[in-house]
């Protein structure tokens, strides 16, 4: 490992250790839920980050992987009585397979940029229509998970159970991002993002690298779907495959900083705080939060294209702090 890889790994471990201790200091159920939801959003953002941030392939339809995971869990559990922890593995595989399928279809034909974004959006929509149609997915009514409290059923009596579960998922996501920063596959993926022709000239199999990224990204996103189903015990087509989830995933990655290890986490916590503040000020208004997301996206893309992490880094540079070589936190 390079010194930079070791440093960044130690930072991740320290962060996770601090997060693991956090519940001991939190008395309020409200703030614990706040943390759980922020971590959950971060996990979605990290999944998107693998393909969009590191790979430069901007998906607008990541809800399709989320939904595949959510429905895989719900269907296996409700229709086949399979243990929810087992469905987590099944969802991971199915999410990855969905990613591989979409990747094979789009990247084989060289779809890029807005074309890729639109096709992913269309795929998510197709999945939504399918889930709306079939009886075994509960059609338009959706699916309810039976109440069966107990850690063995992924239904924690104490909220801390959900907290540590989602923290583990976030930890896995951080490790994936760290690996991308410090592995050959990650170097190739970033090269593909920066310049496909140059990557090809240096021996990079652009198609396979993109295919690998979307498979991994889809698998990660699907685990987020499983967590959602266990936490809220309900899923329906618009929740699973609607644009809301897709936007949330890309937004937290873009706000925090695409292609960085901690970007999705920073974006998720920022967004959670913004949401919380606006709710305090003017009450709940889902339409308003979408408008706010849009505004935030415009502001970020215009003024901080490298996200909050990039903004902080350039601020630090301007304040005369020494710039570390290959800084990657």
């Amino acid at each position, binding site marked *: 490992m390079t010194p930079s890889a070791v440093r960044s790994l130690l930072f991740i471990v320290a962060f996770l250790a601090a997060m693991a201790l956090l519940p001991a200091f939190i008395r309020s159920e409200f703030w614990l839920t706040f943390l759980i939801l922020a971590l959950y959003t971060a996990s979605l953002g990290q999944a998107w980050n693998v393909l969009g941030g590191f790979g430069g392939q901007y998906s607008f339809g990541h809800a399709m992987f989320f939904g595949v995971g959510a429905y895989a869990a719900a269907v296996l559990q409700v229709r086949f009585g399979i243990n929810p922890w087992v469905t987590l593995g099944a969802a991971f595989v199915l999410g990855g397979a969905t990613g591989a399928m979409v990747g094979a279809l789009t990247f084989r034909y060289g779809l890029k940029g807005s074309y890729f974004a639109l096709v992913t959006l269309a795929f998510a929509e197709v999945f939504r229509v399918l889930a709306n149609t079939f009886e075994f997915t509960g059609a338009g009514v959706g699916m309810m998970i039976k109440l069966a409290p107990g850690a063995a059923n992924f239904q924690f009596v104490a909220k801390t159970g959900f907290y540590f579960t989602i923290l583990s998922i976030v930890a896995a996501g951080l490790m994936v991002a760290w690996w991308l920063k410090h592995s*050959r596959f990650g*170097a190739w993926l970033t090269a593909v993002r*920066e310049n496909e022709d140059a*990557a*090809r*000239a*240096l*021996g990079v199999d652009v198609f396979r690298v993109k295919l690998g990224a979307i498979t991994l990204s889809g698998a990660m996103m699907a685990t987020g779907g499983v967590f959602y189903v266990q936490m809220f015990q309900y899923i329906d087509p618009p929740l699973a495959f609607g644009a809301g989830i897709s936007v949330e995933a890309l937004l937290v990655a873009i706000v925090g900083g695409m292609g960085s290890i901690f970007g999705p986490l920073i974006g998720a916590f920022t967004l959670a705080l913004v949401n919380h503040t606006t709710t305090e000020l003017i009450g709940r208004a889902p339409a308003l939060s979408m408008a706010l997301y849009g505004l935030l996206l415009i502001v970020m893309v215009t003024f901080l294209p490298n996200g909050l992490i990039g903004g902080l880094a350039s601020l630090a540079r301007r304040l005369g702090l020494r710039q570390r*070589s290959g800084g990657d936190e």
Partner: protein
Amino acid sequence: MSDAVPPILEVRGLQKSFGGLRAVDDVTLAVPGGSLTALIGPNGAGKTTLFALVSGFITPDAGTVAFAGRQIAGLPAHLVCRAGMTRTFQIVQPFAGQTVLENIAVGAHLHRVRQADAQAHARAVAARVGLADQLDKRADSLPIAGRKRLELARALATDPRLLLLDEVMAGLNPSEIAEIIPIIRSIRDGGVTILLIEHVMQAVVNLAEHVWVLSYGRLIAEGSPAAITTDAQVIEAYLGHGAAARMQAMQVAQ
């Protein structure tokens, strides 16, 4: 050219048209292993297209390409690179947001899985092309001379047997050209066969053992740099019809 050394690259009857334009028209040439040779010709002659054909970026309409004895026409670019032939781009194509080290490491990763190994190799390559003190700079912050060297370094980092260099000296000032010439020679001396496209005649005369001249997609002459620069057909290709006769007349008058 002498048949003593077996060719590392053998192009036969290569052809490519864009619409009605024959960009590369029935080109046949053989690059001897270990040599340093050049491909010259006026703007639009088809030189870059020939590189793109040979390196797998575009597929030929007709003809064959053999690299180290193996037929590779139609092989995709990344596999051509893996086979040991790497090209650079006339219009530099850096991984703009990445550092110089990261850029070169992408090339180094081709034969090195671990990041530490790839970076170590990238540093060594950077030192060879004079980029050792620029490693932490972003590629898009480099001036043109630096970007040209980066193009060269990245390609070199893939450990090629044959390097195709497309105008790595274009846009450089005379002192920068004087700096890069020995670098290119030292790469060849290190065992890498080099075929370069170049407009800078000083470099061609200085470096190349053998020169091919392309004009309107066709090879019109080949030979030593000295022979080429006095070839009537070549002078006409560059300076227009009747130019050779006029130059001859001027020389006689002097």
